[in-house]
């Protein structure tokens, strides 16, 4: 892809610059290029670790209580357990969040709303399923209104068992997710 494909305006370039390279590529292609190309280049160098380090330490989650686990999520985000220590801050709108916590029973009526919330979140994003109800239906396994297979609808990265799990378990799950982000083993591509 040349410069003229991306930038329609005429650009004056020194002949010498065209000889420069960065990560083995002509520098002109790197400077004037598309987002995909930038991501390709990020993958090549050690700079990718810096990105993942930053992502790992700013996992903002959506305050989205849906059940008993939601009340524990309140406590996890508040002073006694202080999730801020791990860069995990509760946010009120999906537009500002990186992590969706499915904190309870997902009903058939709430599923479309929940999908909408998930799609409102910017990439890259992760998903944690907390509690038995979110994992498999839990005590409501034979309810007519509960979705038993949340994993089919959302790409869940970490499952935290418990009914409800204690806030300490939330922290453990969060640290597991951070490890995953660091090692780039999440399902969401880059």
């Amino acid at each position, binding site marked *: 892809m040349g410069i003229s494909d991306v930038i329609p305006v005429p650009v004056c370039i020194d002949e010498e610059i065209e000889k420069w390279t960065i990560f083995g590529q002509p520098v002109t292609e790197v400077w004037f290029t598309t987002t995909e190309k930038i991501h390709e280049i990020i993958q090549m160098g050690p700079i990718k670790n810096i990105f993942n380090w930053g992502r790992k330490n700013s996992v903002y989650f959506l305050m989205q209580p849906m*059940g008993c686990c939601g009340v524990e999520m309140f406590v996890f985000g508040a002073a006694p357990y202080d999730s801020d220590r791990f860069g995990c801050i509760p946010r009120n709108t999906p537009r500002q969040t990186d992590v969706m916590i499915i904190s309870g029973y997902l*009903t058939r009526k709430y599923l479309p*709303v929940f999908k909408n919330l998930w799609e409102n979140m910017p990439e890259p994003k992760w998903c944690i399923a907390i509690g038995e109800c979110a994992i498999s239906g839990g*005590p*409501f*396994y*034979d309810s*007519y*209104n509960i979705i038993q297979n949340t994993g089919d609808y959302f790409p869940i990265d970490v499952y935290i068992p418990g009914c409800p799990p204690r806030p300490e378990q939330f922290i453990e799950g969060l640290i597991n997710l951070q490890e995953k982000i660091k090692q780039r083993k999440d399902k969401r591509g880059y």
Partner: protein
Amino acid sequence: MTNANEVLSSLQSAFPGALSDPRVESDTRLWVTVDSKKIRDVCKYMTDKLGFDHYAGSAGVDWIARNEMEVVEIMTSYGAHNVVAMLKVKTPRDNPSVPSLVDMYWNANWYERETWEMFGINFEGHPELYPLLLSDPLVGVWPWRKDFKGYPDLTTGERAVQITTPEGYTEYRFPPTPAEVEAGTVVTERPKYPTFREREEAWIKSDSEMIMHLGPQHAMVPGPFLLDVLVEGERVKKAFLDIGYIHKGIEKIMENRTWLQGITYTDRMCYVASLTNNECYCGAVERLLGLEVPLRAQYIRVILEELSRIQSHLIGTGEFLTLIAGVGFAPWQYMIIDREKIISLIESVTGARLTHSFVRFGGVRNDLPEGFADHCRKVLPYMKSRIEEFIEFFAQDPIYHARMENIGSISPETAKKMGCAGRVLRAAGVPYDMRIEDPILVYPELDFKVITGTRGDSADRIDCTLREILESIHIIEQCLDRIPAGPIKSETKIPKKVPAGEAYYRVEDPRGEMGMYVISDGGDKPYRVKVRGPFYATFQTLTPLLEGVYIADAVAIAGSMDGCPSESDR
């Protein structure tokens, strides 16, 4: 004071021939079957002449063996007496229909809508018989009928079929069997009704009006619900409420579990106040079994329920403060820090933070641990000083009062007419508390006040909440002084099968009057468990309260109700 026998004889003399199968369980409980043509007259007579001014809900029961359905109207009174009358109306199962009571009791609206969508019982004369809890695909399958097959039916395992939807998602559905198609028992025609969106958009009359959605995702309410407001400028003209986003079908699930397993489901009904829910269910079953709870177990129950009330009030107040402060989390943090101290007290006894399953039929699961009383006596004075500080802080803050006074205020007459209970009613000045009205356990021996407000507005509700915490602390201190030694469980062996019968039991939940109506057919599982949720009753009053207020106040009013949508959805 009136008792159940007097009520029954008065009814029998006024309506000869209309009543059958009367049963008087005690001075305060009355069951009677009423002819469906006379039910409206009987209710009117009871309200006008006998002081039954509190319509506490209705329950549908499907008697599939007798091929009939029943609607039980639960009538009681705001303080005039403590008789609870259960009026049963019978209707054939093929085309069930009973007269509606909406024009007599405003709050019958939601109860009847729920009974319609769950059982398919039609209410003649109901103005808006639309689904309340269920999503549209489930309306018309009548899930609480006894012949409903579940979704997915894991007990048989064979009929739930995995289907990939056009969007690429997986769903589990029940295709009808060929035999059912031949017999014609498959539901092919669904009831037709305008959807929630069509209903609310019909109210838009001019271009200057628009609908604003508040929810269903809320950051600071422990559960989702949809509150839509029709606004013109900054003013709310009308509010619409859509609930059922975490409807789990607990009442149906409990019919498929043993009596003991049912306790765990009451925990998850309202996870902020699970001990009172335990108490309500266990109390009802104890009435059926005829069990006496030992004195020590009664004291333990009272201590834990009051601790549970304190933590519920703290989290409710914290939610409210966060809602009115916008993005500020600071008041929330104070409440949560204090709440953790109470939670650790409860945890030292029950072993769980939220879902305790602690109360058992005829007693409690385990005794208080060593040193519990000392630990309590350390925490409670601290809590008392904190709450007094909060009360003083609220009382002297002019900004808070300018913002909250006369916001969402409700008069005692209106509150009674709307069927409120709990602190919404008490803030309006009606001293109606189940611990006094229908005393259980050792509450009659304890000294405590019923906290009431004067104006019934949001500020009063929060003030009542905080002062109720002080009363709870006072109750616990008395219990710690008086608690005797002795057994913690009834010596009678609890049978697996509970004798046939029915019982209605009321407790004072942190959110108001909670009642459970339990029916046994002599088996090892409940035949029907009806929950009269306290927040379900309060939630209904939210929409009329919002008419005419500013949008910013709508949030404050909804927050001051101390909502737990999980318990209203069940």
